[in-house]
Structure formats: structure tokens, C-alpha cells
């Protein structure tokens, strides 16, 4: 074997060790850390549930039933009045008094709706007393019945109705004529969805669960809205805000910190002083300002596609990257002195390559840990703003808003305990999982802490 060939062999072996060793080991340690694994799985569930919220058989987070807040009840899946629906309201002839006529009218209209819309309609509401002459049909949610097209649907129905009425009277099955007029059509999916993805999920839900939904497992709030549904739908905003904060902190913070730490010298000094300057600005003030600005200019900004949420993301990103930049910079400065970086430099690698190939991978652990710390703080920030009344807007809902509502539910006169329990449970367990995962990641990526990491 020539010396060259042997050298190549050694290098290959060395590369194999580098490529597989630390990361596979870290992963193994992480998996061995049962708590961290459970936390990761839990977070995965939360994220999936949040993303797929419209698919879950939940009550509507928005539709109200005025009255008392109701405590949790263990109600299984059932037909509790499905809130995601298209409602068609008819006005019936005043003379229509007998139950029998009403029943036949309902039958006829259900059949008509089926022909018109191709969906299985059912009677949703009739006048509370018999002499009230109204009738509402409800169609199950289908993808082609999305709310934006509710009126289109009604138009189709109106056409069919017009085609089958003579002199304004509809001929009923089994005899008799009744004057029927379509007075309204409204479509709601119960939370004002706009995205096609959600509409698709709703349609899937309809296919899987039909009219069934879960009862108030976590109770309802003072306006009779299902707390569980609000928490699940609220997770979408809370998680989105958290992820956005993490994302900005990841990209801006890591790149800024890495460049500053790697460059060193004057540039580093200036870049870090700039971070100091930003650090000194009380960011709450900026947040309040941006939000007041947004309130004042909302029409104009909405035209640009900027809503309160976007502003949240922007501002939270502004706040969160600073710490990350500092931490990363410190680590890069330490790494820069290390032998393998020296070696790469001697071998003539470019700065960009050294940063990307030799330094950034070493930051992963640190960055992962800091991210798991950033996420909770961003979520709490959102809660904090909700408390000040500057958080998300009704009817949108977030965990922070629900937590702020929870404070309202605590008083020496009465504690509506389930309004505290729900948000505390969701916020607490998610942040707990994040922290446990962060600890697990740190232990896994830092083998020095030894194998006991798996024993906890």
C-alpha cells in the first residue's frame, strides 16, 4: 500500500468518525433521556394538534351561548350542535300552523336543498314557538361550501326554489302549497377561517366525525364558548408568535453573532456595541409604540398586509435576537482559537467556508438550548401584552389572552377555577416540555456531563 493510499484511508476513517460520532452519540443520549424524549413527543403532539385544529372534533371557539360559565363536564363525542355550518333561513307562510304541515314543509325543503347543493341538509332550528314562521336548514361543512361561498350556495338554492314555486308557493310532497321565501344564508365555520388549508381540514373533519363534537371537557367561559376549543385554536397564535421569535433570533442572531465573533477586532467591537445600544432600549416601550402605531394606522397597514400579528413577529424578533447574538459571538470567539479552525485556515479554506463548515455545526447545541429558552419567553411576552390589553384581538384567541382572562377569573369572591386551570395547564405543560427538552439537548450535546443524563 502506498503512503498516499494509506493517508487517504486515514482521512476517510477520520471523516467517518467526525461525521457519525458526536451527532449520533448526541441523538442516542437524547433518546436515552426519557424525559426529554417525552417532552419532544409532547411538543410534537401540541404542534400537530395546533396545526390540525380544524380537523379535531372540537366545539367552535367563537360561537357563544350567553349565560353562565359552565364547569368542565365529562361529555364524550356527541351531536352537540355542530358549529361549522351553512345555515339557510326560510320564511314560511303565516297560515302554516299545523305540525304536520310544518313537517312536510321541512321534508320538501331538505330535499330541495339536497338537490341544489348536493349535501345532506337537516333542520337546524325552527321557530321557538309554532306560530313563529321561520325555518333554518343546516348543511354540513364541505370544502366547496366554504364560508366565502355561502352566498353563492344560497343563490343556487334560491334558483331551485324559484323554479319550483308557482305564484310564490311551493308544492309540498304529499299535497298542499306553502308560501316559502329564502330570507338569508349564512355560512360559518365557527371561527372565521380564511385559509384553504383550514377549509380542507374542516371538510376532512366533516368526513370523519360528521356532526359530532366533544363536549365542554374543560368547561366554558362566561360567554359559553368552549374553553378546550379556545385553547387548541389559541395555540395557533401562541405557537406562531413563539416560532417567529425563535426564527428571527435564529437567523439574525446566529449570523450576526457568528460574523462578529469570527471577525474580531474593531468590527466585533462595533457590532457588539451596537447590540449594547439596542439592549439598552426598553423594548416594552417599542412594543407599545408599534402597537399603538398599528392601531392608529390599521387601515393603511392592513392594505400592506401588516396586521397586529405581523407587528408582533417583527417586534418580538427585534427583541429576541440580541441575546442569541451575544451568546453565539462568545462561543465563536472561543471556537476560533481552536486547533481545527487553525488547521482549516492553514489549509486555505475561505472565511465563509470556515464559518459554515467548521464553526456553525459546533454552535448547534448552544443554539438549540437557547431556542428552547427563547420560545417560552416569547410566549410569556405575548401573555404580558394581552394583560395590558395590547395582545391579540377578539375574536382571535391566544394562550396569553386566555391567561389574562384567567386573572379576571381569580378573585376573593369566587374563583372560576377551570378558567385558570385550562390556560395554566396548556401554557405550563408546553413551556415545561420546552424546558425539559432544552435541558435534555444541552446534556445530550455536552457529553462531559456524563451518562447520568440518561438516568434522570
Amino acid at each position, binding site marked *: 500500500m502506498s503512503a498516499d493510499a494509506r493517508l487517504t484511508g486515514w482521512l476517510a476513517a477520520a471523516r467517518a468518525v467526525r461525521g457519525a460520532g458526536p451527532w449520533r452519540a448526541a441523538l442516542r443520549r437524547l433518546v436515552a433521556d426519557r424525559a426529554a424524549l417525552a417532552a419532544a413527543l409532547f411538543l410534537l403532539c401540541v404542534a400537530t394538534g395546533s396545526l390540525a385544529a380544524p380537523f379535531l372534533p372540537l366545539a367552535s371557539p*367563537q*360561537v*357563544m351561548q*350567553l*349565560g*353562565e360559565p359552565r364547569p368542565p363536564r365529562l361529555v364524550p363525542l356527541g351531536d352537540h350542535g355542530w358549529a361549522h355550518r351553512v*345555515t339557510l*333561513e326560510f*320564511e314560511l307562510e303565516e297560515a302554516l300552523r299545523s305540525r304536520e304541515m310544518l313537517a312536510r314543509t321541512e321534508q320538501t325543503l331538505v330535499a330541495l336543498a339536497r338537490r341544489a347543493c348536493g349535501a345532506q341538509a337537516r333542520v337546524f332550528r325552527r*321557530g*321557538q*314557538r309554532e306560530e*313563529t314562521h*321561520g325555518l333554518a336548514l343546516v348543511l354540513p361543512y364541505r370544502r366547496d361550501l366554504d364560508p366565502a361561498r*355561502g*352566498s*353563492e350556495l*344560497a*343563490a343556487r*338554492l*334560491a334558483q331551485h326554489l324559484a323554479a319550483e314555486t308557482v305564484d310564490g308557493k311551493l308544492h309540498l310532497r304529499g299535497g298542499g302549497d306553502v308560501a316559502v321565501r*329564502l*330570507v*338569508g*344564508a*349564512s355560512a*360559518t365555520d365557527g371561527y*372565521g377561517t380564511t385559509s384553504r388549508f383550514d377549509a380542507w381540514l374542516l371538510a376532512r373533519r366533516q368526513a370523519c366525525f360528521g356532526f359530532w363534537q366533544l363536549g365542554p371537557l374543560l368547561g366554558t367561559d*362566561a*360567554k359559553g364558548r368552549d374553553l378546550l376549543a379556545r385553547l387548541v385554536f389559541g395555540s395557533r397564535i401562541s405557537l406562531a408568535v413563539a416560532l417567529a421569535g425563535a426564527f428571527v433570533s435564529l437567523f439574525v442572531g446566529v449570523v450576526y453573532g457568528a460574523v462578529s465573533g469570527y471577525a474580531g477586532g474593531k468590527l466585533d467591537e462595533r457590532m457588539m456595541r451596537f447590540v449594547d445600544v439596542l439592549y439598552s432600549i426598553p423594548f416594552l416601550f417599542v412594543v407599545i409604540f408599534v*402597537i*399603538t402605531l398599528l*392601531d*392608529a394606522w*390599521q*387601515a393603511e397597514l392592513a392594505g400592506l398586509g401588516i396586521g397586529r400579528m405581523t407587528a408582533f413577529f417583527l417586534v418580538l424578533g427585534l427583541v429576541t435576537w440580541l441575546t442569541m447574538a451575544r451568546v453565539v459571538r462568545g462561543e465563536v470567539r472561543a471556537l476560533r482559537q481552536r486547533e481545527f479552525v487553525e488547521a482549516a485556515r492553514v489549509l486555505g479554506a475561505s472565511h465563509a467556508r470556515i464559518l459554515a463548515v467548521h464553526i456553525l455545526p459546533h454552535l448547534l447545541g448552544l443554539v438549540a438550548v437557547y431556542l428552547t429558552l427563547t420560545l417560552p419567553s416569547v410566549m410569556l411576552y405575548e401573555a404580558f401584552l394581552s394583560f395590558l*390589553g*395590547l395582545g391579540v*384581538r*377578539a*375574536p382571535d384567541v391566544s394562550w396569553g389572552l386566555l391567561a389574562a382572562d384567567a*386573572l*379576571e*377569573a381569580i*378573585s*376573593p*369572591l*369566587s374563583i*372560576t377555577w377551570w378558567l385558570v386551570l385550562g390556560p395554566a395547564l396548556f401554557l405550563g405543560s408546553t413551556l415545561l416540555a420546552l424546558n425539559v427538552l432544552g435541558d435534555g439537548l444541552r446534556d445530550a450535546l455536552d457529553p462531559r456531563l456524563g451518562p447520568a443524563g440518561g438516568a434522570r
Partner: protein
Amino acid sequence: MSSTWRERLRHGLLLMLALPFVLALVALGRRARLERADVAFANGGEVTSLDPQVVTGQAEGRVMNALYEGLTVKHPETLAPLPGMAESWEFAEDGLTWTFRLRDARWSNGDTLDSADFLWSWRRLLEPETAAAGAYHLFCVQGARAYAEGAHDPARREALWSAVGLAAPDARTLVVTLARPTPWFLALTSYHALFPLHRASLEHFQQRFPARWESEWMQPGHLVTNGPFKLRERRVNDRLRLVKNPEYWDAANVALRTLDVLALEHVHTALNLYLAGEVDWIDRVPPALVEELLARPDFRPAPYLASYFYRVNVTRPPCDDVRVRRALALAIDRHALTTKVLKKGERPSWSLTPEGLAGYARPELAHARDAAPEAAFAADCAEARALLAAAGYGPERPFPPLELHYNTSETHRDVAEVLADGWRRTLGIEVVLANQEWKAYLDAQVHLRYDVSRSSWIGDYADPQNFLEVFLSDGDNNRTGFGNAEYDRRVAEAAAARDPVRRLALLSEAEALLLAELPILPIYSYVSQNLVNPRLGGFFANVQDEHPPKFWHWKERPR
């Protein structure tokens, strides 16, 4: 490197760390704890000023009523005028000339208070330099408006002043000539804009501190007042400590020695303090706890001269169509809102003016009536749908999304959510809820950048005029784009009318017009929400929710 400096500094570091704690303890020590006042009450936020002529707002009014006194004071229960600085008054046949006989009163520093003080104070109220928000209250006086508007011209100032219908024939007499009959003028004299100010002290501080005289003048010890109490201590955002004013003419009948006015923004905090017995009266309660509170004897909401309604922007589609406005107004389930959400006994309202205006035939927006509110509402909804259809909205032409503005507050959020939900369900209208902070909300309202905007009006005095003049075409507070010549004419005629019956009839006609045009969607009449220590005597529920502390006393000795 030499490490000696480092060592030395490191020892200093511990000191540096300890320093804030030491400072904290010093700060704590300096703030000697205040004794519990005889009575303490929660007063919303910090009052903006102690100058009765520039402040507006209920919280400020309460403090002014304790510190100052006008010609008359209000009876704590009936609100009828009682003698204050004036011991008696009479008015001429024409109802325009009022003669007040002042009593022998003194300022808190012992100076005598005479009719010249009133003349000077009222002139200051009108002067542009004062920039007093409440100056218009005096416009009912002959020549006052002209003076206020012309006084920036130094050349004309004195001439204009001499034309103002105010005169002080002697030190104890004040003669006021009104421009037009003003039934509420006597009530106005108990309003804080018309309180007297101590000229000597004010001018003294203005001269000594030309730039920041206000902050000097208002300091405890500097401020000279004429009311039942005087200022002892003031901590921003914490409290005003008032003590009994021994120079006050009726000091013998003022029971409280000390009175604390607490600036409590957070309603839960106020409630906690009340429940812990540290505060004797709070003026708002958390909406979520109304039911628990109603079970208590110390919470008795009472009708209040204030209306809750939504303004509608009549200048932009879709609400430029009166049919749409009427549909929106009808499709509000006021009964469900007041009984299931607000729960304090608020009265559903189909009018701008609240209940309880004596002699006034209050018109209502035409709506279905039925013993069963559900049935009436169903009928209203049917009409609303028909109206929308008539306006051209229907299956073929969906109603555009409606922007509903409200300012940040739990109650406003509740009402807006319920109404939006109702409109969505009954009319199929998609409502965009725009929660805004106060100033942005106001700005959008003033500049008509909204479709529907939450509003309310609290009566300054018990007269429909006060509510109806808001919606005059050129009214500063109109904010809807509404303008109706017929309406303006009726309100103006009423203002000039000498016959009270005719006046009220004209106003009633005007309101009927307003309710046909509907630049507003009436929702409900307020109730007061006072939670008061039942042993606090001299505190009565009344329609203006005014509770002058002069009359307060403990029914039995406090613990």
C-alpha cells in the same frame, strides 16, 4: 497584569451590590406609612390636574367637589341645588337675570371670599390663555361666548368683557345675566368649571415660576381652596390625602377629618382593597363578578344618566343607507345582552337619551313589542333581514365586512363580541372587530375612519338638550357625518324657547328624527356600579352618580 486594583475593586463590588438594597430600605424608611383615612375611595386613574377650570372627567370632578365649592352644591340624593357659596339666590321674571347673595366665606388660608373672586375666576375660565375645556358651560351667559372668542385681541378685550352679563354690585352680591333661558343654569353653578379660584396665590406662583407655575401652585401647602377639604399630600398615581378645611363655612357639618382619594386603575385591585376594608367605595366592579356582587347588600346598581350606543359612519357605504343602519339597530338582542352579559340591571334602550329625564317624552326607534323579548327580537330580525334585502343585499350581493371599533375595555369587548356574533348569525354580516387603544380609537372616530364605533354619552345635567346637541351638524362631538337641517332647526328652536313644555316637545321631535335617521345604534342605558361600605352615611344612589364627600359620615363609629 497587576491584580491589586482588581482585588480592591472586587471588594468594592460587594458594596456596589449591596447599595441598591440599602437605598431601597432608605427609600422605604422615608415613606412613613400613612394612617388610614376616615374614608378612602377608589377614583379610577390619576387626576390630570387640580385646577377645576381645566379638568374634565368624572374622577377629576369628585376631587374638585371635595376641594372647592361653587355657588350651589347638589343635594346628595335628589341633586337639587342647595346653598353653597351663595346663601340665597333669586331670578327675574324673564328667567334671564340671576342674583346670588354670597355668604361670609373664607378661603383655606383665611382670606375672605367675595363676589370679585367669582368674577375673576369666571373671566379666567373664558380667557383663551386658560384653554379651559369647560369654558362653553358659561356660554349661556350674555356676551360670554363673544368674550371667549374675541379676547385673544388685546385691543377689544376690555370692551368685550364689559359686555359680559356678569356684575358684582357689592362684595356679597353677584348678578348674572343669561343670553337665553337655561333651565339647568342653577345646576351648572355646582359644576366644577364654575368654581372660584384663589387669585392671589395663583398670580403669585405665575410670577415666581413663569414656566412651571402650575406644578408649584398645585402643591400641598401652596394650593388655596374653598371647599370642605383641603389638600394635605399628593403622590402621583397613588393617592390624594385631603383633610377637613377648618375655614370652610359649614365645617361644623363636615364629619370626616381625612379623606383619601386613591388612583386605582386596575378594577380588580380596587375590588381587593374594598374587600379587605382598605377602601370604602369603588365606582366600578369587574364585569365577571357582577353576579357574585349582586348577592351582596353593598352592591346596588342604580339608573345613571348615561347612554351606551354605537356611532355609525353615515358617510361611507354600506352604512350610508338608512335601511342598513336600521337593520343593524334592530338586529341587536338588547334583552339578551343586558340580562345575560352585563347583568347589572342595565335597561335596553331604543333611544339616545337615557330614562329618567323629567317631563320629557322619550321617543324610541320603531321596533316590535311583545311580552316575550325573544319573540319581539325574532320579529325585529325578520324586519332587519327584509331591510337588508330591500337595500339590495342578499344571496347575490353579500354584505361587505363591517368594521366595528371599540376601545380597550372588558365591557366594550364583551358587548362588541356579542353584537358581532348576533349580526353574523341573524344578518349573515361578517364583522371585523377592531380593538383600539383609546387615542387611536378617538382619532378614528373623529376622522370618520370606521363603520361602527362604540360610544357613550354621560349627561352633564339632567336635560335631553345635553344629549341631543351632540349630533348637531356642526357639533364638535358629532363624529358620525350625520347632518340634518330639520334636526338642527328643532334643537336650536328648543334652545331659544321660553316655554319649557314646548322646549321639551321640540327636543322630543328632534330625537324622533334622529332615531329615524339613525346615525347611532342605541343599545342600553347605564347603571351606576358603586360598591359602597353600607355604614357610609350621606352616600346615595342618584342619576348623575355624583356623591359629594361633604355629606359623608359614618353611621356608627368605625372599628
